[in-house]
């Protein structure tokens, strides 16, 4: 279960925060602008409005991309302290660089890193895990594109770091209740690696900043 996780922060100079998140072969580039001006139609009087845009590598964005955007927006709506910035917008732009499976978790983790880089206040960090149940009933974490296509069911879960509660959940494919619960348990135990990565990267970023000021 050795996964290659890598992230680079601050690559986009114009954005308030950015991250390049790689999970095995899948990679996404995320830019965050915010809190910034909001269109009157989308303005919320008591909190910031989160606007997520996902740009696929080929073709135009369609309904499938809209569902991904909605899932990301729902997840971070519960985690970002939007009440601190009313009548503003926090824009999150996700650019797909390569989709070789586990795209949803790549996006969530990449967005969380970019929000941290932009110093957007958050309640906790989010760690997302994708798992599949293959035709033999085996649970595989962070599947490849091929494994996702041939699997019986695909499950995307995101956990928050404080209590380990589920913030985002979407599953598709036939599952029995017990299999579904097994998947959740396996996913929960895999997200500690990602939470650890947040701490390592933030420590590096802070020490680098402190060093450059001296």
């Amino acid at each position, binding site marked *: 279960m050795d996964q290659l996780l890598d992230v680079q922060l601050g690559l986009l100079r114009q954005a308030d925060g950015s991250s390049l998140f790689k999970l095995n072969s899948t990679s996404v580039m995320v830019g965050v602008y915010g809190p910034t001006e909001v269109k009157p139609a989308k303005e919320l009087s008591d909190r910031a409005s989160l606007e997520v845009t996902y740009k696929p590598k080929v073709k135009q964005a369609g309904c499938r991309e809209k569902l991904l955007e909605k899932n990301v927006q729902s997840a971070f709506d519960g985690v970002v302290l939007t009440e601190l910035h009313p009548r503003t917008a926090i824009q999150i732009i996700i650019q797909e660089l390569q989709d070789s499976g586990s795209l949803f978790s790549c996006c969530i983790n990449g967005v969380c890193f970019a929000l941290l880089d932009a110093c957007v206040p958050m309640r906790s960090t989010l760690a997302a895990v994708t798992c599949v149940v293959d035709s033999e009933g085996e649970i595989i974490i962070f599947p490849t594109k091929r494994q996702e296509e041939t699997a019986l069911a695909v499950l995307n879960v995101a956990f928050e770091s404080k209590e380990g509660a589920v913030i985002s*959940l979407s599953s*598709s494919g*036939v*599952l029995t209740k017990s299999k*579904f619960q097994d998947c959740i348990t396996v996913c929960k135990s895999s997200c500690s690696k990602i939470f650890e990565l947040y701490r390592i990267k933030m420590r590096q970023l802070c020490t680098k900043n402190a060093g450059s000021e001296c």
Partner: protein
Amino acid sequence: MSEVANIYRITQPREYQKKFLEAGVRSDGRKLDEFREALIGIGPVSTADGSALVALGETKVICGIKLEVAPPKVDKPRCGYIVPNVDLPPLASSDFRPGPPSELAQVSSQLMLEIVLKSKCVLLEDLCIAEGRMCWVLYCDLICLNYDGNLLDACTMALTAALCNVKLPKAFVNEETGAIEIDFKQKVPLNIRSRPVATTSSVFEKETLYVDPVREEEKHASLTVTVVTSNEISGSTVDSDNICVIHKTGGGSVNEEQIEQCISNGRCHTPFVLSLIGSALTKSEV
């Protein structure tokens, strides 16, 4: 309703809902685990190849299915395809504005496609006429006529019922000429292998879990979980133990007991909806 209560409902909507939910009831008098009355009518649209009208309380959705013949997609020469489209016109609610499909409409359309494909309601291979040359395309239009919350449950019910109503004209390849002939006078019912049923539950302020939210409750829910059971049909029995799609929206966090509760709500509600669809279909055949 008394005037004071009505004023409270308009000026302090969240507190109004909170008062009911904390006491374990809903603002329309239902219990937390009680569903609204559902009505299904099969075949209201005579010009469509399959149609159904669903009323879930005040939420009304009509589904019309049109068949078309088209070349199959290049990467899947042995499959037809299904194109569901959820339309939320301004007539249904003041929340919907005229213009391009809103985010809710697009997300619902995508979820309908996932539900139909993942529950294996219709196998795309069953829609093939001639490999690589011609296949059936099902255009499923779901139009919300009145929106009072719980769109996904109503749409799933309407789509399932309408698909059960679809009859495919007989299509075969002429052995002598090799041409594809379609006989519109001979129709065969579409092979429905499962009947997906969706159940939506919402959570208010982390603790109170209730089913089938209305529009007023949806605005103040911290999260919503939709559980879709697949209900495969084998012979005369229906296997209703499996879940095919689970979708959570809303930023609130949910613990494992609540997820379990949502799944068991789905499983408990499924037999009721299946019998409703079944009796509506039998009535339409008479």
